[in-house]
């Protein structure tokens, strides 16, 4: 059937009539919501969706507002990166195994991409996966792995053929974070806490059924993940509340106001309004079936706005800006921009232009793919990975 606003809303209301969140167990409710196709309506039926247009998700969310949610902040990597990749490249069996507990938050995911020697140039990564019968044996080291300490599963890219150029010798896997040989060590970051980790993989054995996509096709699969990652980071509407937080401080502390800060704050208010309108226009383009290149810029714009706003807030606070809420070493499962104080927001926002592709890399992408400017000359294209200078 073809879905529209009315029929999705109807579906959601019918679901609520059958499932009363007030009396149901939270997890049972979420599982039932998934089974009713109201998790992500654009996914296929049976996999949490209805095969409806993506834009109709807002209708489902609106109708189910106030019911238990799956704590999207805690499972962002699963929702934003793992799920779309599994949907695009997974086998039927993999989709059925992973998507439901991913969406309900029963299983947290992490992303084992970055390595000490491979960040922006992800395709140089060195973690090896060697085939032994029906299994792969993985050895290597990953870094900056957010949520590895709470994750049940990981998406992993590893090198399966060192004799071909770097983009061609990669394969994409789902990694069992409970498998022997997986060791997670916290990495304390500038905020004092440890959201991310180092992950050491030593003789980790993964069955071939955990491979996602073809052997040697890992780069293409990873592209899907990375594209979705940028949308997930730049496009989440709730992020805009940073403007709201700073505005609140401004309103409640008139004694802190100065003319200089007023000018800068108004400029950032305009910037956030322009960003909102750009996102509105992008959504309209998507709904009309003409995706525009605007999406490529959203994460870039978001990072800059977040950083400028959080920096201004600390300055506005003067003496209070000299204090920090808490340096205790902790290992949180989420990023809490709004719950923590100005100093934390300022420091954590620095990551927005690094995580999920740096702003420099995004500018390269816009310049080359949107504006069509020539790529820089490169020496690594036709050289086998094992012969690259390191």
């Amino acid at each position, binding site marked *: 059937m073809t879905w529209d606003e009315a029929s999705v809303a109807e579906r959601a209301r019918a679901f609520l009539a059958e499932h009363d969140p007030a009396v149901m167990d939270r997890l049972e409710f979420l599982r039932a919501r998934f089974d009713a196709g109201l998790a992500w309506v654009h996914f296929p039926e049976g996999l949490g969706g209805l095969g409806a247009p993506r834009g109709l998700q807002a209708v489902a969310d609106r109708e189910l507002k106030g019911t238990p949610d799956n704590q999207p902040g805690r499972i962002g990597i699963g929702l934003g990166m793992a799920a779309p990749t599994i949907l695009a490249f997974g086998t039927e069996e993999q989709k059925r195994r992973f998507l439901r507990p991913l969406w309900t938050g029963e299983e947290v995911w992490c992303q084992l991409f970055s390595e000490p020697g491979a960040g922006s140039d992800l395709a140089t990564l060195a973690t090896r996966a060697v085939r032994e019968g029906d299994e792969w044996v993985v050895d290597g080291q990953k870094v900056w792995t957010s949520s590895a300490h709470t994750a049940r599963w990981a998406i992993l890219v590893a090198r399966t053929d060192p004799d071909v150029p770097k983009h061609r010798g990669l394969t994409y896997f789902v990694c069992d974070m409970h498998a022997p040989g997986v060791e997670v060590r916290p990495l304390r970051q500038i905020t004092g806490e440890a959201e991310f980790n180092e992950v050491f993989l030593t003789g980790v054995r993964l069955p071939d059924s955990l491979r996602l996509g073809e052997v040697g096709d890992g780069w293409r699969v990873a592209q899907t993940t990375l594209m979705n990652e940028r949308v997930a980071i730049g496009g989440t509407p709730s992020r805009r509340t940073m403007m709201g937080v700073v*505005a609140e401080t*401004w*309103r409640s502390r*008139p004694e802190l*106001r*100065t*003319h200089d800060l*007023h*000018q800068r*704050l*108004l*400029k950032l*208010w*305009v*910037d956030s*309004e*322009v*960003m909102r*309108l*750009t996102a*509105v*226009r992008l959504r*309209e*383009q998507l709904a*009309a079936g003409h995706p525009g290149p*605007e999406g490529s*810029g959203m994460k*870039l*714009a978001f990072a800059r706005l977040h950083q400028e706003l959080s920096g201004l807030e600390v300055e506005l606070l003067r003496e209070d800006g000299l204090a920090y809420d808490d340096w205790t070493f902790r290992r949180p499962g989420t990023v809490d921009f709004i719950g923590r104080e100005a100093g934390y927001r300022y420091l954590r926002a620095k990551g927005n232009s690094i995580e999920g592709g740096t702003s*420099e890399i*995004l*500018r*390269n992408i*816009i*310049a*080359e793919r*949107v*504006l*069509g*400017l*020539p*790529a*820089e*000359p490169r020496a690594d294209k036709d050289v086998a990975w094992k012969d690259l200078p390191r």
Partner: protein
Amino acid sequence: MTLLYTEVEEELRAAVRALLADKCSPSALLDRASRTAESGTPYDAELWKALARDIGVAGLLIPEELGGTASREGGASAREAAVVLEELGRAVAPVPFLSSAVLATQALLTAAGQKARGDVAAELLGRLAAGETTAALAVSFAASPYAPPSPVATLGEDGTVTGTVTGVIGAEAADVLLVPVRLARSAKQGTGLCAVEASPAAGEAVRVTPVTSLDLTRPIATVSFDSAAARVVATTDGMEAPWVWEALVRGAGLLASEQLGVAEWCLTTTVAYVKERRQFARPVGSFQAVKHRLADLWLEVVGARAAARNAAARLAEAPAGGPLGDDAAVAVAVAQAHCAAVAVHAAEECVQLHGGIGMTWEHPAHLYLKRAKADQIALGTPGDHRDALAGPADLPAPV
């Protein structure tokens, strides 16, 4: 409401763009600019005639019943006018669209909406819509909607206008000058809007003196009236002149689309140039220092399009002649605060990334820089528009 372009808007754009490509090439503009730098007006009367009469752009904001094409039911609106301005900005076309079809027209529409002397306004609007007559609003182009100037001309007891207005755009091209006036007729205070015909017959009574302007393609002039015969279009008892405010604020909202057009031309032209131009055995556009600047500029232009479209859409929803709502006023201020700066940045990058050629009179980049910089001052600076947002955004200034 949508921020996308409709099919009708795209057709209008195509027609305007084709005409401009034919009649208003960069080299023709440069020729004209060189000639006018020494003497004369840069206005291209023939081009304006074709735009106003053949394509009908002069009547886009004028309601159907007054001879234009604007209507609530699918006719033209501020959205179409905005698309025309995008194209005119992209070509820095020397035509009085903004001065006549937007500013003067809007002042008349507001006056007509005040009913009192709607007949004069209606008659003038009819002439404007037909593209037969061109008008100018005798108010400084630098006036901010948030501090509208009080009238500097006076309407005498004998029905003639006297006074001098500086910084007026579109005056040399105008057949009719619309002058905000102070009423000197009675003891009571009041202001009005007068129409003065600027035909040669007016002789010394109406003088339009061009000023050497920063913007070569849209000059300013000083307009003097010395007991000039006038018709009263509207009057009000107070000192607030709604026609001036409405013209300035709506003009500011639409100016954002012109600025978008200027910025787009600068970006596209610069991208094309750095792909071609080679230094150090590579196209200069393959250097990251250049690529990143253009990527940032692209992002600014993307934002400018969203903001300018939003302003146009909000203005289209606010009926002609009626007062502007809060949402529309915010949309205008956001668009001006953003787009003015983007146009200037784009034009400055255009000059810089063209290197030496960008600094020459032969390359059209300077025409865009001059237009962008003048537009930044026009109808409120970005700072004026940001200040105006303090109230609606509930971000009060320090006391």
